[in-house]
Structure formats: structure tokens, C-alpha cells
């Protein structure tokens, strides 16, 4: 597991308005990086840029040292996987059919489907706990099941780097933890380098080996969760007064927002 993904003075955006400016970031190989920031701070745009979905206005995205936009897209897809924020399951597609699409970058045009690929798909279904649902229609699954099916697709793609844009959005807390546990399993068992945008700061801090706080299109802080999730960062990045305490279950930092109500004054 050696694939590395870095950005070099990356500037990108939509139209003429840059959303990310001059941003340099290295994803630690074989680790989990969580990216946090306020709405519209550029964190999803950064992820899209790293996944070559948006062209760089200036700067570069490097996959193993090579400019990602200069590489054939199928070649990139063998090393870099992406789970977008709202992927679409075509009507009537079954779980196994959907997950099998993950093999696309490894297949030649008009090639026959091989038993080896069946085994890879079955392995991905097994690892995400959806093997029982293989012949079910994806539309009919619950949100948590659907998200695990999409992760299975990314697994079948067999990439060393996996980018996820808010993989826990629309899930209840139980399924959020389940998805993040699953991703941690993958990281530990396969050494997959994972970077994901997360909304929940406490979960982001808990599941991060490396944490990045994005503010106005640049990195405000990055490093270990203890270094990033501070009262100062929360104040600057989110404009929120908060207390940061130690999470008694994980020892990671945990924020307690201070709103205008319900705060004890001792």
C-alpha cells in the first residue's frame, strides 16, 4: 500500500470564483484523514478536486507524484476510488449488479466477466455485511444498508485510496457509527488510505488519524485531532463558542457548543 495523494498549491472552483485557494495537502498513506469545515468552506470542492472531478485553475493534484489530470481516467480509477455525496442507484438495479460496477476500471472493453471478478464482488459484499442482500433491489433498502452497498462498490474497485464525501449524511447515529466502524475496519485490514468529509465534529475527531479543518478555501489547521479540534479552531472556522473536553470513551477531543441558552453559569 504505497499510493500517495497530494495537492500542490491547488486553486479551483466553479466558473471564475475560486472556492479553494492555494491549498497544499498530503493524505498520510494508509491512514484515515477527516476533513471538517463550515458549510461552503470548500471542503467538498477540495475532495472533488482531489478526485479529478473538477479541473485545477492552478496548482496540481498528484497521484503517486504524477499529475492526476494528465493520466487516463481509467488508470486513475484503479488506484483512487470515490464515493460521492449523493450517488444514484438506477431503478431496479440489484445490490450485486451495482457492486459489480466497481470492477469497471479493471475491465477491458467487451471483456468477459470472470469467476475471479465474481469472487472480488462477493468479498466486497461480505466485508460490508450485505451478502444476504445481493439479489435485492437497491431502491428498496434502508439508508444504512444503501450506504454499505456503495462502500462495497468502492471496495470492489480495489483502490488503495478512497475518498468519501459525507458518507454519514442522512443516517441516524447508529448507522453513522456503523459506517465509520466499517471504514476503519477496511483501513486496518487492507491498509486503504481514506479521506472523508464529515459534518459531525466529534465523530470526525474520534475516527481521524489525521484531521484537516478547512476555512475559506484554505487549511486552517491540520494534524492530530487534539491539535485541530480546539476551542480556537471552532471559534474561527465555525464562528462558534464551544468548550472542548476529552471524550471519556475514546480520549479524543469532543466539543460542547455554547449556544445562547441552556448554558450553566457557575
Amino acid at each position, binding site marked *: 500500500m504505497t499510493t500517495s495523494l497530494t495537492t500542490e498549491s491547488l486553486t479551483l472552483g466553479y466558473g471564475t470564483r475560486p472556492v479553494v485557494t492555494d491549498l497544499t495537502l498530503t493524505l498520510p498513506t494508509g491512514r484515515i484523514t477527516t476533513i471538517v469545515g463550515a458549510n461552503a468552506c470548500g471542503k467538498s470542492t477540495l475532495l472533488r478536486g482531489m478526485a479529478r472531478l473538477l479541473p485545477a485553475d492552478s496548482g496540481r493534484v498528484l497521484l503517486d507524484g504524477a499529475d492526476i489530470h494528465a493520466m487516463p481516467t481509467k488508470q486513475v480509477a484503479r488506484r483512487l476510488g470515490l464515493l460521492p455525496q449523493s450517488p444514484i442507484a438506477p431503478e431496479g438495479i440489484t445490490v450485486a449488479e451495482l457492486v459489480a460496477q466497481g470492477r469497471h476500471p479493471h475491465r477491458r472493453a467487451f471483456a468477459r466477466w470472470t469467476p475471479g471478478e465474481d469472487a472480488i464482488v462477493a468479498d466486497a459484499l461480505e466485508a460490508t455485511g450485505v451478502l444476504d442482500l445481493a439479489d435485492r*433491489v437497491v431502491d428498496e433498502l434502508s439508508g444504512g444498508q444503501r450506504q454499505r452497498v456503495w462502500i462495497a462498490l468502492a471496495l470492489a474497485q480495489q483502490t488503495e485510496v478512497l475518498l468519501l464525501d459525507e458518507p454519514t449524511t442522512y443516517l441516524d447515529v447508529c448507522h453513522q457509527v456503523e459506517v465509520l466502524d466499517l471504514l476503519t475496519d477496511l483501513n486496518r485490514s487492507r491498509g486503504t488510505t481514506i479521506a472523508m468529509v464529515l459534518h459531525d465534529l466529534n465523530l470526525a475527531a474520534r475516527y481521524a488519524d489525521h484531521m484537516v479543518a478547512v476555512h475559506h478555501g484554505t487549511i486552517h489547521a491540520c494534524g492530530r485531532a487534539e491539535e485541530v479540534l480546539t476551542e480556537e479552531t471552532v471559534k474561527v472556522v465555525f464562528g462558534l463558542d464551544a468548550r472542548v473536553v476529552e471524550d471519556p470513551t475514546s480520549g479524543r477531543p469532543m466539543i460542547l457548543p455554547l449556544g445562547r441558552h441552556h448554558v450553566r453559569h457557575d
Partner: protein
Amino acid sequence: MIETAAPPTAGAAVTRRPRWWTAVALAAALGAVALSIAFGSRVVSLPEVWQAIVVGGDDITAAAVRSRVPRTLLALLVGASLAMAGVMLQGVTRNPLADPYILGINSGASLTVVIGIAFVGIHSMQGYIWFALTGAALAAAFVYTVGSLGRGGPTPLKLALAGAITTAALTSLTTAILLPRMEVMNVYRFWVVGGVGRAENHDTLTVMPFIAVGVALCALTASGLNLLGLGDDAAAGLGVPVVRTRLLAATGGVLLCGAATALAGPIGFVGLVVPHLVRLVVGSDHRWLLPVSALTGAALLTLADTVGRVVARPQEIEVGIITALLGAPVFIWVVLTRTGVRA
């Protein structure tokens, strides 16, 4: 891991038999060919049909039966082309309502053909095909652009509305050109109803290369379209060149429906109905959806043409009218049941 126990939302397991359904569709197409040759506005007994086709003969009955062969070939070709065009347009736009007729592509082809007849003096298939294809491509590009404006990009409903508006505008232009020109009207009115009755093998051959290129583009983009179905971002993440795939697939769809329209006039609903029916049984894999739809479209149009020849003997009802009568209820069913439309 509460989720692993199947919750009440998960439906029954799905098993598909695409090979079996291919055989069924092929059998249907062959059956339609047999019916199309055996039945027509002239009542001919089966031994006479056999005599005319296999043994030969030069009486009027034999000639009438043999004249059913080119129109049957044309109906097969047009039906297959329209059904594949429907699959391609639905795949490209991720839109369950996409169909050459609904997206205004047929009305674009009609307008340019009328312009060709009225102002350029074309009167042969070599002329029709270029005018039809130009009009089809322009209308497709226009509707897609207008349907993509505003928030959310090209949603199914916006595309259908843009298509309806475009159809209304282009149709009134067509009418404006036609009304003062009786001689153009006479050429046009047979073409526009959508018929295969005046089939000439010569015309069919003229258009064949365009259909062949369209089919090749279908084959080339089928697996790419499967991935575009997951959304542009997911498709790009899986290594699909999104813009190129969409452009090639759209070109294939427009070639197929432009060629079919040049041959038989605008025929509605085959491109809408057939892919939906086929998707119910073979699923959403374009590598099966395209061939099975082609066979089913060929069978459906050939049957519709045969019905049109039989129901009002000795008159014929043009196949475009039969498919519209058949297709309208299905269109309403699709609008009511497909969740994609509400999104």
C-alpha cells in the same frame, strides 16, 4: 449490526434471465414478420402466401403478398432503431421520459424535412436523411440546453417540458411553411403520419449506413451508460470519460431516431414504451437492454403496422397512429409510477 436482519423494506430477491428474454423477443419478432407477410388489406389465404413467397408467381395476389416484404423489413428496422434510440436517450439524460418524440427531436427532424421539401426541392431519401438528421441533432441540442438551465441541471421534468415547448414551437413553424403550399403539403402529409407502407428497399439501403453507425455507437457506449446511471461523479470516479461517453451515446441515439424518422416519418412512443417494458424483465444493464429492446421494438412496430392494415380493410391506418394510441396510456402510467419524475 441490526441492519443485517432483512428489514421489512427489503423486497424479494430478483433473478434475471436475459438470455431467455432475448429468445422470447426474437421469437416475437419472427412471429411479427410471419403475421406481417400473411395478413394485409387484401385477404389472401395461407397457401397463396406460401405460393407467392416460396414458389413465386406473377398474379396480382402474389405481387400483393411480395409487396409486404419490403414494408416488413422497413418496419423491423424502424422499430428496432426507435427502441434503441429511446434506450440511449433515456440513458444519456437519466430520464425515464426521454423519447425522440417527447424530447422534440422528431419535430426538429420534421421541420427541417419540410424546409428541404419546400425551399430546397428535395424529394428523395438521400435528401430527407440529411435534413432529418440535421433537424434531429439541432432539436436535441436545443432541448438539452434549455432543459439544463437553472437549478438542478437537466431534471426529467424540465427536459420533458423543454421538449414539449420545442415541439409546439417547431410544429407551428412547420405548419406555417406548409399551409400556403399545397404541393409541399401533399408530399409531407404522408410522411408525417408515420408510415412504412411506401417502403422501397432502395430508400432503406440509403439510410442503412447511418443506422449502422448508430448501432456501433450503442455497442461502444453501453457499459459507459451503465455507469452514467450512477450519477456523473460516481461514473467519473469509476474511470468513465463522462462528457465523451454522453456525447457519443447522444450522437448514436440521434442518428438512430433521425434515420428512422427520415424513413418512416415521426413515429411516437415506441422509443418510450419498449425500453420500459424491457427494463422490467432484463434490468438496467444496457448490454442486454439495447439488443432486447431492438428486437422488441422491431416486433412491436411490425405488429402495429399489420394491425393497421387489417382493422379498417380495405383502408390502411398508418403505423404512427396505432403506436400513438398504444403509447399514450403507457406514457401516463410511466409518469404516475416512476419516482424519477417527481425528483
